[in-house]
């Protein structure tokens, strides 16, 4: 499952709590944009109480409005300080892609598309006062910016309070659930459906449920997701039961009654 929203005004998922207070931070999600001509706001963490020009934020963006349709990672920490990191590859409309931004420190920033196309920047930026987390909007005290008017879909939105490394980002793009990747640092994980249920926008790491101002729709998610597995229990050799009336069936992770 995934969530679809039209990026017009009012349509978003958000919560008035920030998953992190600053660097290090990693944000990631799967997204599927209906065009490669619009700007799409993917996960964003910012200080919603500041005016636009003086804002602090980490923002992951699908830039269909830029030549090559890259994913951008914007960081601003006060007036006139915005920096932009771009992937070296671009996304394709109506296909699922994985986007990830990493700020391992104030001077180490990277952005990835589908586990590669890495762009990096070492300019020092360290936003503060963060109090808002959203997908689909960059919100300020005086205004909100939503992006293009086309529909886009997203799923498995996650935030870590650590800077993931290249192999870990590649594993996410290969389909591993964020639960498999450095789980001790995973602070927000909104699957937006799947095995966690349709229409369920909670953060299963306990941050807060996302609200859905405007209009969002539950849609299919056309990618595999590899969740953490449990062990399987051995039941014995061929010389052991089951006898003809043995009532038990071996199930993954334990025994069940047949």
């Amino acid at each position, binding site marked *: 499952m995934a969530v679809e929203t039209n990026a017009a005004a009012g349509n978003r998922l958000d919560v008035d709590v920030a998953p992190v207070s600053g660097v290090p931070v990693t944000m990631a999600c799967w997204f599927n944009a209906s065009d490669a001509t619009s700007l799409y706001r993917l996960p964003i963490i910012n200080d919603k109480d500041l005016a636009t020009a003086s804002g602090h934020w980490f923002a992951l963006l699908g830039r269909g409005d830029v030549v090559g349709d890259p994913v951008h990672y914007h960081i601003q920490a006060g007036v006139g300080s915005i920096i932009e990191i771009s992937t070296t590859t671009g996304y394709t409309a109506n296909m699922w892609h994985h986007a990830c931004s990493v700020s391992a420190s104030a001077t180490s920033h990277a952005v990835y598309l589908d586990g590669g196309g890495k762009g990096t920047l070492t300019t020092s930026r360290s936003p503060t006062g963060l109090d808002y987390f959203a997908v689909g909007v960059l919100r300020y005290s005086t205004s909100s910016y939503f992006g293009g008017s086309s529909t886009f879909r997203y799923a498995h939105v996650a935030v870590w309070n650590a800077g993931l490394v290249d*192999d870990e980002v590649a594993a996410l793009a290969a389909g591993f659930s964020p639960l498999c990747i450095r789980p001790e640092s995973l602070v927000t994980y909104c699957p937006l459906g799947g095995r966690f249920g349709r229409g369920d926008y909670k953060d299963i790491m306990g941050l807060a449920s996302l609200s859905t101002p405007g209009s969002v729709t539950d849609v299919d998610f056309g990618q595999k997701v590899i969740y953490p597995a449990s062990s399987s229990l051995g039941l014995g*050799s061929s010389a052991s039961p089951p006898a003809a009336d043995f009532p038990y069936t071996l199930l993954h992770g334990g025994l069940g009654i047949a």
Partner: protein
Amino acid sequence: MASGDTLLVFPAWSGVPTSSNGATFDTRNNHPCADFDDTTNESLVFSGVMPQQYGGGGVTVYLHYAMTSATSGDIDWDAAFERIGDQQQDVDSDSFASSNSVDNTTVPGTSGNVDIASIAFTDGADMDSVASGEEFRIKVTRDATSDTASGDAELRHVEIRES
């Protein structure tokens, strides 16, 4: 449990990479696996409860792996147990027993072929005295600084059998 019987099977993606030098998850032709570097010793930790069927005869750990690209050279694997048990281990710290090893295993001549390497543990201190019904962890490490096969090793499953 009879000798040779399977006690537990862990898929690689049920493991947790160690905080430093952890193996990393990957897929190969849609098969999930865990990659272990060829230059740095990396580890993956699995958690389980020793089944009641464990008869105290010691265990053998079977590592199902393939090489990403290598078709020559050898690989070294280590495994170590940590008993959690009933008030036996403060989980705020780690306390793995010394590892046992299987060294100098020649890797398959075809990189996509899965090999099975085994490491034996005697009952008692050798497996940190893990007993039936007790929670435990097992850490699997590729001893990459000692082996010679180039490129990643892809761990797929870990099987524990009664020895």
